[in-house]
């Protein structure tokens, strides 16, 4: 730490004591400051530390200083002056602390703090620690008395260390398993509540929240069209292009239509749409509910006697159940279009040939299966997203974790369910 030690002529206006001449500055080395402390007993040391702070700052005009003078009665006195505030102390807190410790080693020394202009908790603490956490003989301005009143003779106890648990791994696995169980339980409860709400609405159709539903269909469906088109188109092209290379080597060019038809309509279309919607709308649903928890809007709804599931969750679930199959169809259409363009380019399959052959190679059951999966995935994504949203605790960390978990969980669930459906319906729509 750089430190300037002024000679007394330069720094001490009205300084008592003899002129010591410039001495070596105690640097960062601890031994140097010890040496200072020892020799300080003989000579009146005069050391000033300049603060390097903001220009025009009051604190830099009166930096914290401490100097040792010998009174006419032969007793040593430490003169402390300047601005003893955190900002001014910061550049040389360590060096000052060492020097003060050196001064404090002499138990008979008197401390004169009357030259201190301002003293804050940090300044008081620095002096207090240098004094060995007890009050020496000290002259103090009355307004600075209070700063020392709160300081305790005992250092603040260190925070308790977290105990290391040798079974942490096992505990962690168990905890995760239990968490999974509680998630499943809560999702089942939420789904059941939604069914009850839906039945209630069926009995009172005038209470159906049409506005929320249509707003959600617009937000999750209509606004997702461009991104789904882009992704679907590119995936169609890539799939067609890669397959074309393989098929051409067997001379089975025409089978590109079967491959694209079944692959996209039965599997890729619903999957792509579900993944995009989970990332796009699922996360926003979780975040929305989470922020409503943070801002206590959920509680406000509850105390108004308005059901959270009826007003917030059900419209989202219904909206995605409507929007998702439509998005699946849209995705199918665009991906097939991309595939068709690439097939013409790579294999010379004409558009007319493609469009005429497609219906005969693709049993319509595949379309129903794809659209049905769309409805199911939509409901799953919305329920999972809302479940995580309602679980969020009112802090930012939980909001971030909840949103991530919601997206991961909904995409994973969609893929698992898709695999199960693939097995269950393996004899449907394929020949």
């Amino acid at each position: 730490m750089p430190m300037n030690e002024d000679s007394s002529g330069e720094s001490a206006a009205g300084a008592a004591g003899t002129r010591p001449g410039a001495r070596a500055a105690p640097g960062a080395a601890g031994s140097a400051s010890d040496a200072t402390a020892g020799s300080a007993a003989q000579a009146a040391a005069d050391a000033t530390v300049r603060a390097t702070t903001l220009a025009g700052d009051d604190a830099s005009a009166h930096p914290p200083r401490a100097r040792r003078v010998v009174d006419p009665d032969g007793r040593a006195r430490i003169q402390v002056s300047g601005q003893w505030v955190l900002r001014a102390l910061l550049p040389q807190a360590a060096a000052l602390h060492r020097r003060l410790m050196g001064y404090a080693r002499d138990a008979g020394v008197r401390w004169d703090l009357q030259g201190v202009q301002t003293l804050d908790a940090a300044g008081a603490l620095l002096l207090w620690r240098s004094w060995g956490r007890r009050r020496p003989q000290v002259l103090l301005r009355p307004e600075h008395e209070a700063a020392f009143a709160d300081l305790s003779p005992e250092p603040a106890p260190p925070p308790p260390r977290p105990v290391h648990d040798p079974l942490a791994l096992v505990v962690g696995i168990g905890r995760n398993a239990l968490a999974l169980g509680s998630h499943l339980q809560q999702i089942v409860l939420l789904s059941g509540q939604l069914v009850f709400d839906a039945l209630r609405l069926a009995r009172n159709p005038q209470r159906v929240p049409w506005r929320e539903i249509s707003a959600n269909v617009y937000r999750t469906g209509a606004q997702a069209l461009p991104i789904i088109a882009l992704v679907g188109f590119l995936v169609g092209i890539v799939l067609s292009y890669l397959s074309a290379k393989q098929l051409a080597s067997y001379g089975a060019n025409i089978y590109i239509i079967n491959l694209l038809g079944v692959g996209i309509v039965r599997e890729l279309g619903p999957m792509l749409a579900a993944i995009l919607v989970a990332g796009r709308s699922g996360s926003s649903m979780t975040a929305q509910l989470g922020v409503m928890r943070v801002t206590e809007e959920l509680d406000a709804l509850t105390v108004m006697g308005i059901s959270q599931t009826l007003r917030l969750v059900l419209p989202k679930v219904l909206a995605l159940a409507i929007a998702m199959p439509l998005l699946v169809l849209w995705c199918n259409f665009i991906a097939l279009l991309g595939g068709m363009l690439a097939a013409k380019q790579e294999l010379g399959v004409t558009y007319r040939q493609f469009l005429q052959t497609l219906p005969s190679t693709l049993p319509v059951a595949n379309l129903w299966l794809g659209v049905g999966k769309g409805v199911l995935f939509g409901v799953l994504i919305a329920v999972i997203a809302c479940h995580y949203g309602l679980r969020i605790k009112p802090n930012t960390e939980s909001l971030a974790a909840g949103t991530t978990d919601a997206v991961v969980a909904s995409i994973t669930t969609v893929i698992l369910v898709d695999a199960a459906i693939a097995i269950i319906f393996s004899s449907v729509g394929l020949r």
Partner: protein
Amino acid sequence: MSSSCIIDARGITTRFGATVVHRDIDLCVRTGEVMALIGESGSGKTTLLRELLGLSRPSAGTIRVFGVPLQGCSEEALALNRRRWGVLFQEGALFSALSVYDNVALPLHELRALPEDVVRELVMLKLALVEIDTASASKLPAQLSGGMVKRVALARALALDPELLFLDEPTAGLDPERSAGFVALIERLRRELNLTVVMVTHDVDTLIALADRVAVLADQRLITVGPLWDVVKFPHDFVRSFFLGHTSRCEQEKIDDFRRGLVQSRRAA
């Protein structure tokens, strides 16, 4: 720059679309004083406070804090400047993911110059200052009561021992006992540190106990700025209704008596 003004705002005009919130406001906050900002809801108190903090930018006008203009100075100068301020937000604005201790320690850690044990002791001092017990230091903000959130937020605002303290509704949500303690704390800090305080408040008791000068925001302007006993006499509907029933308490001698009493009662306690 007039040297006595810690905050020097000139010609502040704020527009939101077609709505004019402030029209050509001049405000000077002098070193060491407690300046209170009052006004009816919607008069732009919080907007003005945000502009003084440099959080939003007025449509026209300049604001200098410690002589440094908020607009048009370098990020670094602004950051250094801001270390000399403490801000108590109305809702506390504690970092919800950090414990009480970490919230208060954050500005100290950010300096990257203090050893951990010094930080710990400073944090504990600040928490003791606002009467938060050690057991609560490891709690998260969500586990605290509203009043405690406010006190922890004050401890955080004071962590760097600022020269300038902004308080947005400091005593709202505190019980009378705490609110008196809060007032005494501010009083003590400004005595020790020559603290300058800018506060927005609705509480007449806080005004009587603390405010050196009061600025009244109404009709898009600062209609009057002055000591409480002068402001109460200002002929304006808002001022009349604000101090309704309190006018006699706001005479200069009574305020002086009240404050002396406050200091003595705290000392006795």
